[in-house]
């Protein structure tokens, strides 16, 4: 991989394409005009795509960081002897969080926290918790019994066992869960535009309301590229972690 140089990296090309569309969507004007000859304006113009992206990124980052922190902490808790009894409960709650549609969470959250980014972050947080918890539990329980017994038998304290043995060995599986969660959150965050959050879903919903298909297309392509790019970056991180 490294030998082939950066130019052979798909991450670079997808990233460049994404950046180009974010900053210069107008370059696509001729193509879009050919596809949709009667629609004007053809590029979404109420706010730059870059601003929408940064806001979208912020929402996903806030929700995913919180979900990672809470999810991994809960997984650690239920895989220690003290918290073993809570495992079924935690799993059930996380499953409810994911089966509850994000749109419904928004509907409930808006009267409580108001319009804007906050209900979206709450919905994304709840929706993203399950894959993180499930993978973190699987990763921590996947540490070989012999390794755990040796660590305990040699006199590592519970905290040292967690920090030096359990977490490093579970890290690849935990990271895979975070990857799934973040990728889903990027797609789901678009719904936030219906309750006043700025996301790359804003042109989609605006286009749907005004019957302007090009807006929908522009938003959808950017969201998809954002998700793909993030997924690729996580894949790189996983590989880097595996090499170490």
């Amino acid at each position, binding site marked *: 991989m490294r030998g082939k140089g950066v130019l052979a990296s798909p991450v670079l090309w997808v990233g460049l394409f994404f950046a180009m569309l974010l900053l210069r969507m107008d370059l696509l004007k001729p193509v879009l005009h050919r596809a949709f000859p009667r629609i004007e304006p053809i590029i979404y113009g109420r706010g730059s795509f870059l601003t929408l992206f940064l806001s979208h990124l912020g929402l996903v980052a806030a929700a995913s960081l919180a979900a990672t922190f809470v999810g991994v902490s809960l997984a650690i808790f239920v895989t220690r002897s003290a918290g073993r009894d809570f495992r079924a409960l935690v799993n059930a709650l996380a499953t409810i969080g994911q089966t509850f549609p994000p749109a419904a969470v928004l509907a409930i959250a808006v009267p409580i926290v108001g319009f804007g980014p906050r209900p979206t972050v709450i919905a994304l947080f709840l929706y993203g918790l399950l894959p993180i918890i499930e993978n973190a539990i699987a990763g921590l329980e996947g540490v*070989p*019994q*012999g*390794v*755990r*017994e*040796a*660590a*305990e*038998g*040699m*006199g*590592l*304290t519970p905290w*040292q066992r967690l920090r*030096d*043995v359990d977490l*490093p*060995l579970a890290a690849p599986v935990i990271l895979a869960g975070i990857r799934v969660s973040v990728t889903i959150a990027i797609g789901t965050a678009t719904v936030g535009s219906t309750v006043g959050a700025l996301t790359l879903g804003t042109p989609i919903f605006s286009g749907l309301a005004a019957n302007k298909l090009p807006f929908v297309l522009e938003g959808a392509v950017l969201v998809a590229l954002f998700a793909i790019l993030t997924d690729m970056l996580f894949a790189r991180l996983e590989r880097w972690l595996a090499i*170490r």
Partner: protein
Amino acid sequence: MIEIDQVTKSYGDRRVVDSLSLTVAAGDFCVLLGSSGCGKSTTLRMVNRLIAIDSGSIRVAGEDVTQVPPEMLRRRIGYAIQSIGLFPHWTVEDNIATVPRLLKWPQGQIRDRVTQLLELFRLEPERYRNKYPHQLSGGEQQRVGVARALAGDPELLLMDEPFAAVDPITRDALQAELARIHQATTKTIVFVTHDIEEALRLATQIAIMNEGRIVQLGSPLEILEHPANDFVGDFVGRQGLGLKLLSVRKIGDRVRAGETAEGEPLPLDTSLRDALSAMTARRTDRLPVSDAEGRDVGVIALADLVR
């Protein structure tokens, strides 16, 4: 070194260890021998408190184990297990250095200790130091596992079927190394196994266990010559008893001093069994014997083996 006094452990209604008492003197190599489920591993794991005692007491070097924080106790006791449990994300050096680091030894001393242990186990230090466990063969992994157990220079070493998962040839080599290390370091070792041959080869003292109790305690020779009851007799096996007896006796006190014979000399600590094997292979009834320095001390003859 260890005094186990009336220790009992139950899981539900089942008594896995039943008011067991055992004293292991410093420098002993004590083997807990029995079939699976007899309570031998449980007994071992109560010594370093991986399993809590229900009743009774265990003292290590005169100190009640429940009066010491478990981590402190375990850092003073070496521990090696069948599944080895090397940390896969650490190098050989880091693995061996685990306990010295916990004990906060200075860097240089830890490095020297790792080198010394790798040499003791005949693993070339510069070649093996930076390898990861998955790059080692099963036998090498188990050597590193035992080296790691010895790293903190513990007076006591607990071993739970450490060689059960390696192939017979490697096991043979590892047993020989462990016997050599035991003699060289005079550490106290408590060793759990279900393999009678392994027990006879390594132990200075064998405790045969059944249903949570010790049914007989004695030297390998005593166990073979005077089994306490039918259970022990069956367990050590009447078949091949003669060969087992030969395997626990050394040629040392049967040497005819002053006589000479042709051939490659046997060391003084050769077992009668190995001497018989050597005679059969070399088609002779007399072989020369030499001491540790390689000086000829006399001859061992076929007739002396079976006396």
